[in-house]
């Protein structure tokens, strides 16, 4: 139990991947809930993992999960509403980072939050409260004046990327403000977690929340299922999962660095980083049969153990990769023509990112220590004492450099874990054949650190142990606003490199 926060009996604290009875979370009066959340979030080491509401016993039940990184605890608070149309005092009025969660609750359930900056729709979910609100009629920020103009881009973009709408308010070439409207990708993922009853269907769903984070999201789901089903997994499996997660990180970071180079017209970097991603994802395919690791992570075991033969292969690939990666990375990050387009472009301050509640790469590039491998260690990370890479300049350079340094860090982690794996003789456990029995009337929280940052899944079960509510949070939820701020006072032509340097998820946000 958490000494620092649990003296009042106003909250419950659990560990990552832990389940508790839903009844063990005290239900507070809203005023008390509000005060408590506001106070906890005063500490920069605490941030909101997820804050959401769902129908429960003819009421609307609110759950707020806060990560206390120093204590490695998850703080759970709750309140309930019988009449969801009565206004509540907005927490975002005190802590802006909560703005997106209150917007989502407002969109889904109609709860009005007084003092919220603007309760704009988040994603136009099919089950939104007000079906009359349509995605092609979004309330954009407006600005007056004869010399100003707007530029609208999307939802379909010029490249092979996901859809979103960008609205630039410009004075000549200078962007005064960028607003990003999302929701185009909404597939009803959370509802499908209830409708699709087979475990395997839920694995496939988790792998497709954001297909570029198939390992990160599916691992979050599996750890959640294991917590609810009281399944313990062996050390081998924990190690292999982390190797898969770090390979995913390396592959996407390397591919992203290729795109950085493309957007600043550095052709050699674009080609070489692009080619370097290939052996990494081809290894994931040799391991699991799929270049994105779809099929690799399953509840309670694996169908694809990392055999001695595969480990030898991976060692060779990593050695070759390291040599070539170092060479091109050194060149790229020392080339004046590249640096001119990286440094001081699209900078956000530590304070801005902190106010917006940035997580993962977006936090780290601005010098904010948020990485769930450190704050909510899971699986093999518990023994690794992970120290996140931190930069501070908050610009395109920092977003590129954080990737370079994380790739190097992942190399160390994977090699270190392969040595541990090698020392173990027992085979990694296979996927259990038995049906999963989940605890009834419980809640569990599972957090993993995907390559973008913190992935959080929360499930609530009913009396029969069936999922009665499922909540997914992709790190992009926190981070899109930061891209908007990066564009202020830049030339509009700097948008592509900034967008690429964030590389946020549309489908992960839209669900």
């Amino acid at each position, binding site marked *: 139990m958490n000494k620092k926060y649990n003296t009042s009996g106003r909250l419950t604290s659990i560990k990552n991947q832990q389940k508790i009875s839903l009844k063990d979370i005290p239900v507070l009066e809203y005023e008390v809930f509000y005060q408590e959340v506001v106070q906890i979030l005063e500490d920069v080491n605490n941030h909101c993992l997820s804050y959401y509401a769902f129908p429960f016993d003819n009421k609307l039940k609110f759950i707020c999960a806060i990560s206390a990184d120093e204590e490695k605890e998850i703080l759970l608070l709750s309140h309930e509403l019988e009449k969801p149309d009565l206004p509540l005092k907005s927490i975002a009025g005190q802590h802006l980072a909560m703005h997106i969660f209150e917007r989502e609750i407002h969109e889904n359930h109609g709860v009005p939050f007084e003092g919220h900056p603007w309760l704009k729709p988040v994603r136009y979910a099919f089950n939104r409260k007000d079906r009359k609100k349509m995605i092609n009629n979004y309330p954009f920020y407006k600005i007056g004046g004869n010399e100003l103009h707007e530029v609208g881009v999307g939802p379909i973009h010029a490249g092979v990327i996901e859809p979103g709408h960008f609205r630039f308010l410009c004075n000549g070439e200078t962007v005064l403000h960028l607003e990003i409207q999302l929701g185009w990708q909404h597939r009803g993922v959370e509802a499908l977690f209830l409708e699709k009853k087979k475990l395997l269907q839920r694995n496939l769903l988790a792998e497709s929340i954001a297909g570029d984070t198939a390992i990160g999201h599916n691992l979050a789901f599996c750890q959640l299922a294991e917590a609810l089903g009281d399944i313990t997994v062996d050390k081998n499996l924990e190690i292999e999962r982390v190797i898969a997660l770090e390979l995913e990180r390396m592959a996407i970071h390397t591919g992203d660095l290729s795109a950085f180079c493309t957007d600043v017209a550095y052709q050699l970097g674009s080609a070489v980083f692009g080619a370097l991603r290939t052996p990494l994802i081809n290894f994931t395919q040799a391991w699991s049969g799929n270049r994105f690791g779809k099929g690799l992570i399953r509840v309670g075991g694996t169908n694809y153990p990392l055999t001695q033969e595969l480990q030898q292969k991976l060692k060779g690939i990593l050695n070759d990769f390291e040599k070539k990666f170092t060479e091109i990375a050194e060149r790229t990050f020392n080339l004046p023509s590249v640096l001119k387009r990286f440094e001081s472009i699209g900078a956000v301050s530590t304070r801005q990112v902190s106010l917006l509640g940035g997580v993962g790469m977006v936090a780290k590039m601005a010098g904010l220590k948020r990485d769930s491998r450190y704050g909510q260690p899971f699986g093999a990370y518990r023994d690794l004492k992970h120290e996140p890479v931190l930069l501070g300049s908050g610009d395109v350079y920092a977003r590129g450099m954080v990737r370079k340094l994380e790739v190097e860090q992942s190399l160390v982690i994977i090699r270190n874990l392969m040595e541990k794996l090698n020392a173990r003789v027992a085979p990694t456990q296979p996927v259990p054949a038995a049906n999963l029995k989940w605890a009834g009337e419980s809640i569990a929280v599972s957090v993993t650190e995907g390559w973008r940052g913190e992935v959080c899944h929360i499930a609530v079960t009913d009396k029969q142990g069936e999922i009665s509510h499922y909540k997914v949070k992709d790190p992009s939820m926190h981070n899109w606003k930061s891209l908007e701020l990066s564009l202020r006072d830049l030339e509009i032509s700097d948008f592509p490199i900034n967008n690429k340097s964030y590389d946020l998820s549309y*489908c992960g946000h839209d669900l």
Partner: protein
Amino acid sequence: MIIEDVKIVINQGKQFIPDVTKAVVPAPFRGRPEIDPDLTVDVDALVNCCPVDAISANPISIDMGKCAFCGECALAFPDKIKFTNDHKIASNDRSKLIVKESDVHPITMNPDLIREEIRSFYGGSLKLRQISAAGDNSAELELGACGNVNFDMGRYGIEFVASPRHADGIVITGPISENMAEAVQICHEAVPQPRIVVLVGVDAISGGIFSGSKALDRSFIDKSFIDLYVPGNPPHPLTFINGILDLTRRKKNQ
């Protein structure tokens, strides 16, 4: 110094696949499945093990347009079902994606369904506008990879372009959300005729794991002529490139 660039280029060596039509993807890649006709299994259990209802009974068949290529049926019934590493699984004929017991032949095009103008106009050059319509970004990344230095699709004159006005057709990924349905329609109409429609990945072809979701609007698919289906979750770049080549290039024996 330019000498450093030269060193990097030399250390990279040749990266391109010399002939993508002959390239092999090594096992355990899950490509075209094969079903053993002689082995008797619990058919209900086999049909039920599929998370996306891609397996049918009487006769036992796997619909690659619905298959998420998770491989779980082959893990549960290893002697009955095998996924080969044959990656050439695209076809212009939806029915050719259904693999029945004892089908061990490669997946082919149906020449009768290929419009004459497609081969005469686009046999040497094809510009495509990609639309991600609630795609999960894995198929999109693989389409992006088609143009990288390894697969180098551009050598065949096949490219993704920024505007539908510059395109000869659209390539759809994702199950098509209700929120993207109108944009897909508008983009398609903006492409000059003759234009082709290509569906890439299980989500686009059948909805995949999102099938049945109330957040989708697949009416565009239902009312459109589809020129090419590219199965996979996501499809391998070689599946896409070979599919496009087979659709647009006239072979000597045809």
